[in-house]
């Protein structure tokens, strides 16, 4: 008995120790991963072309290794420009680094003093933080900034200075399947009622009218919602600014109420939007299962890659008045240079090169977004209609663009908008976002 007891004891102790070991290992593993996330991704990039750089080093003594960090899924479009650039300046070797969840990785790298030389910030709200912390270079007086469209420049303004160069216009519109529209004899809707009537017609034909990828990218919910706000007023940005200044409550805004109602109304013509992820949304639209999908620019390249045969185009969201249709615009890409970079001059040379109209045009042809560089024509027929509105100046700025909202306002607004698709409770939604904005700066 005594012996048996001791054996039991030993075994119990062993199991306990094993369990503790597992716990410790699991926790170690996770903390290690966190800590290493940035250095490993940083290490991966400069070394990824060792043969090329050593060859170049043998030919010319000093080779500049420049890291270009960017988040967008348009790697080939950038590669094309980089190839041209390296041909002209053989002593500069640019390595493009494109990792998953890039904006978070960028945040980490900026925080740990391991910033990439040159990066694409997109419309990230981190811009404001980076500027306030002196992490990025002031580009206001650079020669190449004069080539940029003033509307785009205004969007990167921070207290009179520009710390980033906008690359393209970002916009959200309703992508639609041209064939389905033609077959059913539907014209591009000019009012909300026409849009609903079109959806009814498509539904009657047994096709899903809209696909809303509401599942795992709440960011799209925010942009989608904001696009509606612009069809009911020409300056939705002001509604939120007024709430931040404690002038009015968001719950009192008729514009937001109407936008929320439209947001809900359109979703009645979609199927289980909350279970559809971004990729599944693209698939449904590209394969013709759904006739319409609201999305930002880069959807065009993705849809085209899934189904090159599909004929599709994009129209701006209509509201009550057909003459008051406006395109929501922001800056899609925003190049910024790290203040800690050893090669600030070389990075500026690249921006100068990128912004030359012939290079920006090459980029436009591959990336399909309207260029923010003056004099670059739009060759993408899918966005023709949207472009027309932009050229006529019928645009409005996304309320959450750039410095106006804090990062947490951007993120939490997006989640509240996702919740609205679920609850369909406009009052509750307005109260939640009012709590997010009223008196908060």
């Amino acid at each position, binding site marked *: 008995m005594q012996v*048996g*007891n001791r*054996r*039991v*004891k030993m*075994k*119990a102790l062993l*199991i*306990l120790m094993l*369990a503790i070991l*597992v*716990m*410790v290992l699991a*926790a*170690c593993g996770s*903390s290690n991963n966190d800590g290493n996330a940035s250095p490993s991704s940083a290490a991966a990039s400069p070394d990824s072309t060792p043969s090329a750089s050593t060859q170049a080093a043998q030919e010319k003594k000093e080779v500049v290794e420049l890291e270009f960090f960017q988040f967008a899924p348009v790697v080939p479009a950038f590669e094309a420009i980089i190839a041209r650039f390296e041909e002209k300046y053989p002593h500069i070797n640019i390595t493009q680094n494109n990792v998953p969840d890039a904006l*978070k990785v960028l*945040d*980490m790298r*900026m*925080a740990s003093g391991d910033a990439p030389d040159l990066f694409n910030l997109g419309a990230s709200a*981190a811009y404001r*933080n*980076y500027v*306030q*912390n002196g*992490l990025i270079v002031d580009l206001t007086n650079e020669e190449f900034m004069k080539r940029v469209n003033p509307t785009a420049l205004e969007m990167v303004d921070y207290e009179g200075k520009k710390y980033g160069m906008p690359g393209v216009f970002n916009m959200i519109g309703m992508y639609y399947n041209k064939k389905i529209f033609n077959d059913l004899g539907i014209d591009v809707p000019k009012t909300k009622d026409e849009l609903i009537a079109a959806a009814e017609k498509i539904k009657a034909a047994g096709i899903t009218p809209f696909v809303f990828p*509401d*599942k*795992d990218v*709440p960011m799209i919910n925010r942009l989608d919602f904001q696009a509606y706000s612009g069809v009911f007023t020409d300056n939705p940005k002001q509604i939120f600014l007024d709430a931040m200044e404690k002038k009015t409550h968001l719950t009192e805004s008729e514009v937001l109420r109407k936008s929320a109602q439209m947001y809900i109304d359109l979703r009645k013509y979609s199927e*289980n*939007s*909350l*279970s*559809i*992820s971004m990729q*599944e949304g693209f698939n449904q639209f590209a394969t013709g299962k759904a006739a319409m999908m609201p999305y930002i620019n880069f959807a065009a390249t993705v849809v085209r890659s899934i189904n090159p045969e599909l004929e599709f185009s994009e129209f701006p969201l209509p509201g009550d008045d057909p003459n008051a249709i406006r395109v929501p615009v922001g800056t899609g890409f925003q190049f910024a240079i790290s203040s800690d970079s050893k090669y600030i001059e070389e990075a500026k040379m690249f921006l100068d090169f990128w912004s030359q109209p012939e290079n920006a045009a090459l980029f436009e042809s591959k990336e399909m977004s309207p260029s923010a560089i003056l004099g670059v024509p739009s060759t993408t027929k899918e966005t023709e209609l949207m472009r027309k509105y932009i050229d006529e100046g019928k645009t409005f700025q996304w309320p959450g663009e750039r410095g106006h909202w*804090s*990062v*947490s306002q951007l*993120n*939490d607004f997006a*989640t*509240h908008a*996702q*919740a*609205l*698709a*679920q*609850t369909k409770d406009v009052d509750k939604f307005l109260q939640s976002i009012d709590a997010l904005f009223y008196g908060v700066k």
Partner: protein
Amino acid sequence: MQPLRIGMSKKTTHFLFTLPGVLVFAVLFLGPMFTGIYYSMTNWDGLSKKYNFIWFENYIQTFSDVRFMGDIRFTLSYTFLLTFFVTVLSLLLAVALNSRLIRFRNAYRSAFFFPAVLGSIVVGLIWNQIFYGVIPNIGKFLGINALSTNPLGNPNLALYGILFVSIWQGIAIPMVLFIAGLQSVPQHLYEAATLDGATIFQKFRDITFPFLVPVLSVVLVLKIRAGLTTFEYIMAMTGGGPGFSTESIGLLIFKQGFGNNRFGLGAAQSVLLLVAIALFSILQFSYLNRKGVDQQ
């Protein structure tokens, strides 16, 4: 041959053997824990070089936050359901797979253990696709309304979808621990009990169970901790959605710290989580230790 002696006392040797473990623990656990507590009293955004000391403002804000309270509710119900089902199911499986009546026991054991070797993010992503592509078809075929759409897109069902996956993967390790515990029960006790005319249930309650208590308390601690800190499955499957309906405390901390640039607030919330887990574990160990077989 004489063993080599370098003139060290037993105590020194013991000390040197424990030293690496203590150092690893201090560097990887105690260090971050104390810096975490420090940052929880600042308004650091995770990025700036400057930040202010704001004492308990983050804690006050946390307790007045409706979202935090909703997340606590979610996390607690998830933890309760997870712990309950994992413990019961893994114990049943262990008893079954320890029984001599079942053939190919080892094959079954391997099969049930298999999910444990997969990474939780991988499992989450695989099930994500199953919930999207397979479950609705099965639901439609069987005419079950609730399952004819993706459960993860339904705020009332998303919790159970995530729970199902975490149970599926989570029972593997407890099952192995229970099997080990069952094998440590001395056979002669059963024989004696049989002679005394004990029923199967009595044997389980009075012989098997007391021997399983140490394992049980480990399993409970592991699962309660896993439940309270749950993150990966939710990140991979719903991202906390739809809306806020599946947002756990762990995910909220991540979102505040890394998504919303409110590192101080996130740190404060994780300190609260740490306290909660510590309390649970202490209560549990002190309660269950009184019931164990080998407490003398």
